[in-house]
């Protein structure tokens, strides 16, 4: 289960390199090493990250066509209505696809390998890129049922997914 532990450590609350909601790439806690970049909220996405900090997964739902979307936008990407409301998502999802990263694209993840990246499809429809945690990389599979949980990163929290058991 070393993979699980490492994957968990990748975004854990220990604060190694967390850089806060401004998304600065500075702020490394280890001298000479880059910190993990945090989210870079814009006005349309502020409520999403504020909710994540409280441990809630919010989605936009369009009052015009009824569809959910993620990431947050100022209009519905399906019908272009600006009549959007925030709704709390159930947090249940299926793994749409995944990979085990051995050579990360960003140096701040160098010590976290191997870690699991996945795109999950929420029960409400939208898909998002995330980390799978408490999953042995060899046990991950397409279609796996997973559930959202939150891990502090700077002054917000990342939403990641663990097996839904």
């Amino acid at each position, binding site marked *: 289960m070393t993979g699980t532990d490492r994957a968990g450590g990748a975004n854990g609350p220990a604060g190694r390199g967390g850089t806060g909601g401004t998304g600065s790439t500075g702020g490394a806690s280890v001298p000479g090493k880059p910190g993990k970049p945090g989210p870079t909220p814009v006005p349309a996405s502020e409520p999403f990250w504020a909710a994540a900090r409280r441990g809630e997964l919010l989605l936009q739902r369009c009052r015009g066509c009824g569809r959910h979307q993620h990431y947050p936008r100022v209009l519905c990407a399906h019908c272009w209505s600006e009549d959007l409301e925030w709704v709390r998502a159930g947090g249940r999802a299926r793994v749409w696809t995944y990979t085990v990263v051995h050579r990360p694209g960003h140096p701040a993840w160098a010590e976290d390998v191997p870690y699991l990246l996945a795109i999950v499809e929420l029960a409400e429809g939208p898909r998002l*890129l995330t980390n799978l945690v408490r999953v042995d990389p060899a046990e991950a599979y397409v279609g796996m049922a997973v559930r959202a949980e939150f891990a502090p990163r700077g002054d917000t929290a*990342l939403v990641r997914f663990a097996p839904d058991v």
Partner: protein
Amino acid sequence: MSLRGAAAVVGVAEVPPKRTTPGVSTLDMIARTAAAAVRDAGLEPGAVDGLLVGPQVGETPQHVPATVAEYLGLRPRFADLVDLGGATGAGMVWRAAAAVAAGMCTTALCVLGNVRGETQPRSPNRNPIREFDVPYGGSGANQAYAMVATRHMAEFGTTAEQLARIPVFERANAQLNPDAVFHGRPLTVADVLASPMVVEPLHLLEAVMPCGGGAAVVVTGARHARRARHAPVLLRGAGERVTHRALSQAPELTTSPLAAAIADAYTMAGAGPGDLDLLSLYDCYSIMLAVTLEDAGLCPKGAVGPWLADHDFSHRGDLPCNPHGGQLACGQADLAGGMAHVVEAVRQLRGTAGERQVHGPSLALVTGNGATMSEETALVLEAAS
């Protein structure tokens, strides 16, 4: 108005990819590549009155066409920037043809070039992919293509051994291309599978090597082209789709938007997969070429794994594909890597590809692909009879 037969590629040039390009600026690289393509067309610089260039991230963030025009001493009647990642080269060709057909210019130079040092600057992005993907360790293209491969394997049972055949046949082809970075270094399936795992299920040798280099083409009207130095290569069909940037927003994972772009190109060309004599298909990763072979209608969706073993993709084979070795064997000079697929198709259709010349090809499919199956362009090119 259809672009079918409206314009032709009359000049091509490449500065072959190299791992590093010391002592050269991006503008130097673009200028040398551009001059070589115009010389190849047998034209004087003054004949160029259209200019298409690509983005130069971090170096010339704005005003790229003007900067390149000034450096080259050109005063084009039509100038533009094409920003379609790996589809930029193919996307330039039909845009140049459209500008020529619309009378906005007579002869358009389409040029891409980049330089590469020992270290690369990080992307300055401030966009949704930076906000929602990068914080999870989801930076770069490797992880995204790996997730396409994972899904293809899960849906269709495609195996690592099957995908490994792609870099192997491309390396074999590249042994007849002295300009390829991996000329003199053929591969076996075992070599690919023994190479380091980068992002499961993709191994190091299933990914392109980033390089510096340049590639350019010169496009002019079909009538004008008959007086060109080389046999002209006509644009017979084109299609394009742009669907998403982040892979999480892709409409599908195992069918690329190239399927629709290629279908449009076939329709314009009045041709289909059975009419092709040559494939010059974008191949940043093994899985991208695999998906493209399916999306071009050459094999049924999902069947590419076993299908690969039944075909010979060499210049003498039943289905010549990337006879130059593709980007997997030549190296990828950033956006010029995509244009290199156009250049190779033109050389083959002219009959000037040397040792690796395919026997008498008349119709070629060229694809370009940007981001992760996001920016997709297909061209059908035809040897002038």
